[in-house]
């Protein structure tokens, strides 16, 4: 073979090998879906759609339903988003518009470090430090002044839905803050300067110009944060209490899909039990896929619109 031919053969091989490795990612995602579907088959056939609405969770009797896990996942994530999004916005605005550059770098760096702390460390701190605080001070206070609401009734245990939601807030906060900060930093200075030029205050310029400009990126970040909070496992498992009951009180123990999987997967030797847990995993997988896809298309629509605007 001529040198040129063998060279192009080598190049072709190189391209194929690298392409194959790239394909691995797609194969993996497909594989995850396939394995989850396969192993939840028994549970899907037995419980049908009722699985999603049933609050039964009786391993002894072989009756399973995802309702309490879905409820817990949604509630804990909702608490986290309700608290983290406004807080992240405020912090990001502060970092970009108000803070002294050095302070911005230090606080920004601290936020990034918070994001790097592994979930299990949040769990440890949550269980041993934060839960004690909740039980001794926060929950009794809430019960005393807001106990007329069913949300804050019941004995203060320290662990439970509220604590799990708060820990999730701390975990999602750095992520949304970082992305929002990046989005705000991309606002063309000329826009802000024009606003200041006509006499707008920092707050007005931010509210009416910067946030409006970056709103799609921010929404995308929120979607992504939502997706991550849904699947957060260790931090929540430590403090949520593992109860399959749906309760109106945030002081009560509960469970999320991820915490149920972490707590029960290894002990489910009965085929239907294991299959139901696989089905829970499938539900979580599809939920996170949904949010990520939504985020992706939202952001790409924003990018196309921006390109069109220009």
């Amino acid at each position, binding site marked *: 073979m001529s040198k040129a031919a063998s060279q192009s053969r080598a190049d072709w091989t*190189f391209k194929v090998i690298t392409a194959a490795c790239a394909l691995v990612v797609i194969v993996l995602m497909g594989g995850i879906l396939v394995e*989850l579907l396969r192993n939840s088959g028994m549970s899907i056939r037995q419980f049908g759609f009722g699985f999603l609405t049933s609050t039964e969770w009786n391993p002894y009797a072989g009756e399973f339903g995802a309702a309490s896990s879905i409820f817990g996942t949604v509630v804990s994530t909702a608490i986290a988003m309700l608290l983290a999004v406004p*807080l992240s916005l405020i*912090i990001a605005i502060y970092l970009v518009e108000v803070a002294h550059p050095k302070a911005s770098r230090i606080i920004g760096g601290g936020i990034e470090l918070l994001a790097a702390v592994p979930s299990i460390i949040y769990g440890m*701190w949550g269980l041993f430090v934060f839960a004690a605080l909740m039980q001794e001070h926060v929950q009794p206070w809430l019960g005393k002044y807001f106990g007329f609401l069913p949300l804050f009734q019941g004995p203060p245990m320290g662990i439970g839905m509220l604590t799990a939601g708060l820990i999730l807030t701390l975990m999602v906060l750095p992520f949304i803050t970082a992305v929002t900060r990046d989005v705000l930093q991309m606002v063309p200075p000329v826009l802000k300067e024009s606003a200041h030029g006509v006499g707008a205050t920092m*707050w007005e310029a931010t509210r009416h110009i910067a946030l409006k400009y970056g709103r799609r990126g921010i929404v995308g970040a929120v979607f992504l944060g939502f997706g991550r909070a849904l699947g957060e496992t260790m931090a929540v498992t430590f403090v949520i209490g593992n109860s399959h009951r749906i309760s109106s009180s945030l002081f009560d123990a509960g469970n999320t899909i*991820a915490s149920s999987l972490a707590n029960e997967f290894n002990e489910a030797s009965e085929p239907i039990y294991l299959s139901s847990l696989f089905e829970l995993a499938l539900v979580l997988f599809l939920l*996170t896929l949904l949010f990520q896809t939504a985020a992706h298309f939202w952001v790409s629509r924003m990018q196309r619109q921006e390109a069109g605007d220009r």
Partner: protein
Amino acid sequence: MRPRSHTARRLADRSARIVMVPAALIGLTVLAWILWEVIARGAGALNASFFTELPTPPGMEGGGLANAIVGTLLMTVLATVIGTPVGLLAGIYLAEFGTTSRLATAVRFTTNLLMGTPSIIIGIFVYALIVLRTGHFSGWAGAVSLAILMLPVVLRTTEDMLNLVPDELRESALALGAPRWRATVTVIFRAAKTGLVTGILLAVARVSGETAPLLFTALNSFYWPETINEPTANLTVTIFNYAMSPYADWQQKAWGASLLITVGVLFVAVLSRFVLKERKSRA
């Protein structure tokens, strides 16, 4: 904008500024608090026996987590060996061949999805794939699940780093007659070396703190990992088990292990981010 009085607008601005400071400090405060607790509670557990002895039953004096440290290191190294080459090659494909191909777009989208997939789902996937089929837990199943977590991170950073290499460099290499693969592997790699290594380091930092995937693959063990074809001790699952137990000595060991992991992960994260920023600003 609704016309409002000058004072009202100034008040709004000032209130916003006042609210922002404590909000921003929340992040720093929580970080400092967590680090403080981890250090304060964990330092006491990190004595010589922690690093050299096997776990003892609760209530028995002494004992350590030497096997868990070895197990974590073993599985992390194995995961790196499995996941890095695939990630590197895939990143090369995206950067060098795939700027417009449909495969590349699909891969990029899927990589984002994979990155956002909860690690517990990855663990359950590997459980179904390997543990169910082999009939037992194993350290190499754990390594595979960690490798899957590392893959998209390595892929992304490789693509980003390679994209930073100026096209002129590529063209010069090719103009000198080097075949495509040679050009990529020698010239471009060398140019992007720092970025690639730190990308791998970032991925390693991320997976060494993971618990959920190991729960269903490597499980845990009280003994030395003699082979990777059996349940393998590791720090994160140990922390999970010990923390949920009622035993004060186990809880303290859990804090010690937490300190070890936190220091390791943060150190690598800070280091690699610092080096990455340098690299990006230089390019």
